[in-house]
């Protein structure tokens, strides 16, 4: 009973900020500016959502976000699997050292290299377009490589032996034998890298411009009135529209997602 009470209280505190965004999204500017703070907006102003998508080119930004998140998701998922397979099932001189470097890269703060990368990209004309995400995607992500490696390393050796006898190349084994049976981990990797790009603010803020930037950047600066003051109800409505895909994806893959956390383990 006491546990239930504690959990109820914790959940209420954690859920309240999210509720507040929803409540704010339904307020008119009068309800927003009323001296008595409105906790439950009546009447609810659904038209805020319409205004949120029409006042700024919301759909165009959403398409940009979707496009970027998809290319970097697909590329990162595939190349991380490739590298993870290499670390799990193949051998070569220097493998242990390389694996150590990989682990160190997981600890490496991405922000440290981001600014110099931006300076370099700007010198070769890669700023203002989506090529950096292709390059990042092709390089894979250390965390996902590690995830794949743990998964592939746990699979039985018999799997590839038959294929080797049939004269299958390593790439063939990877594509025909290992990838098909690792669907759950592939889905997890795709969701994680997709959501990372969808939620990222710093890279698009640095590397893209006003016209081809993502929703994350547009949200933070798009909704202001003529005098430059933020329009809180529209910010809230826009934020909800921006978060909905994330929540949907989460509910769709939730079980798999949390199971894979334990399967891969940070151990």
């Amino acid at each position, binding site marked *: 009973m006491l546990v239930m009470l504690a959990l109820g209280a914790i959940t209420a505190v954690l859920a309240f900020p999210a509720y507040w965004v929803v409540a704010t999204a339904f307020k008119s500017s009068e309800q927003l500016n009323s001296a008595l703070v409105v906790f439950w907006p009546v009447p609810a102003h659904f038209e805020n959502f319409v205004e949120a998508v029409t006042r700024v080119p919301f759909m165009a930004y959403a398409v940009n976000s979707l496009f970027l998140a998809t290319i970097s998701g697909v590329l990162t998922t595939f190349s991380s699997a490739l590298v993870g397979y290499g670390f799990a099932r193949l051998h070569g001189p220097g493998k242990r050292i390389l694996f150590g470097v990989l682990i160190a890269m997981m600890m490496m703060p991405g922000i*440290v290299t981001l600014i110099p990368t931006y300076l370099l990209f700007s010198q070769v004309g890669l700023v203002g377009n989506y090529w950096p995400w292709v390059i990042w995607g092709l390089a894979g992500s250390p965390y996902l490589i590690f995830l794949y490696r743990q998964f592939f390393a746990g699979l039985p050796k018999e799997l590839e032996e038959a294929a080797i006898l049939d004269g299958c190349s390593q790439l063939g084994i990877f594509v025909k034998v290992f990838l098909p049976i690792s669907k759950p981990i592939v889905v997890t990797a795709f969701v994680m890298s997709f959501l990372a790009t969808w939620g990222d603010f710093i890279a698009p803020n640095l590397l893209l411009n006003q016209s081809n930037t993502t929703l994350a950047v547009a949200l933070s600066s798009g909704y202001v009135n003529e005098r430059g003051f933020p329009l809180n109800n529209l910010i809230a409505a826009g934020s909800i529209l921006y978060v909905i895909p994330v929540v949907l994806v989460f509910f769709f893959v939730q079980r798999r997602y949390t199971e894979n956390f334990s399967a891969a383990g940070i151990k």
Partner: protein
Amino acid sequence: MVATLTRAVPARRSSLQTRRRSRAFYLFVSPWILGTILLTLFPLAYAFGVSLTNWDGVSPGFRWIGAKNYVDVLTDPETWASMGRSGLLALVVVPLTVAGSLGLAVLLNQKVRLRSFWRTMIYLPAIFPPVAAALSWKLLFDRDSGAINAIRAWFGQDAVNWMTGQQVFVVLLALMLWGIGGGMIINLAALQDVSPELLEAATLDGAGPWRRFTSVTLPTISPVLLFQTITATIGVLQTFVPALLLSPATGPAAITAVPEANRVFMIDVYAQYFAYSRYGYASAMLWLFFLAILLVTVLFFRFSRKTVFYAVDPSNGGGKR
């Protein structure tokens, strides 16, 4: 003659196989190797080069000035102040997150009613994209229309302007603690690995719940706790987006308008780069930050040798091999 032949052939074949296999290994891992060189090592080296110059990003005639930037950074009280803020943030947020998420995981590992509902609700804030989270907290703590001041008013407390002074640091702290569910999920996964036989044996030996927790559960999950502590520390030290978006200004002006209490280290670095165009100086800051992170990580691993228990020797490259 026959004997040497039969022996020689497999030997040659296996060396060919080894070579082929190592070629396959390098082929498979090459995207990551190339990526690491191009996207991490080269930018790091480049930043180091820039940090030895007085480049402002615009004028072509920049000069080699040696270690001057490093001396300037280390003697600038503003650097120490922003580093201190980042350190303080880590000092508060990391222990609370690690301990709090462990506590929540232990609670939700028991058979409570509505267990998966609680898990989902607590995890949900962790999946909020940082931008949405920061904007939400701005609405929540708004001076006139925010819920926090309204609730304070019920108790007769005056309205607080949360976006200025020291208060904004409190908002930042609260915002960062909101993602506690992320750690909880990892801890829940770790708790699944605690051996029920071991727990039972401890019970038979007369160990109470607390003793079982400290003698069986904690040692089992200690590698996961260490990993969380390290990644959380590194993560908090690089806090940027939440601090930036709690600024009263929006767009490019936001970086210089961040209230002083929230001018954490990365905000300082960005301002030096993009508001004041001090590329050399800011690159020196990044390099010092990189060294500091490295030092923190090494210290954690040093310290953990005595406190973290591994069932499998991790220096072998981890678990299931």
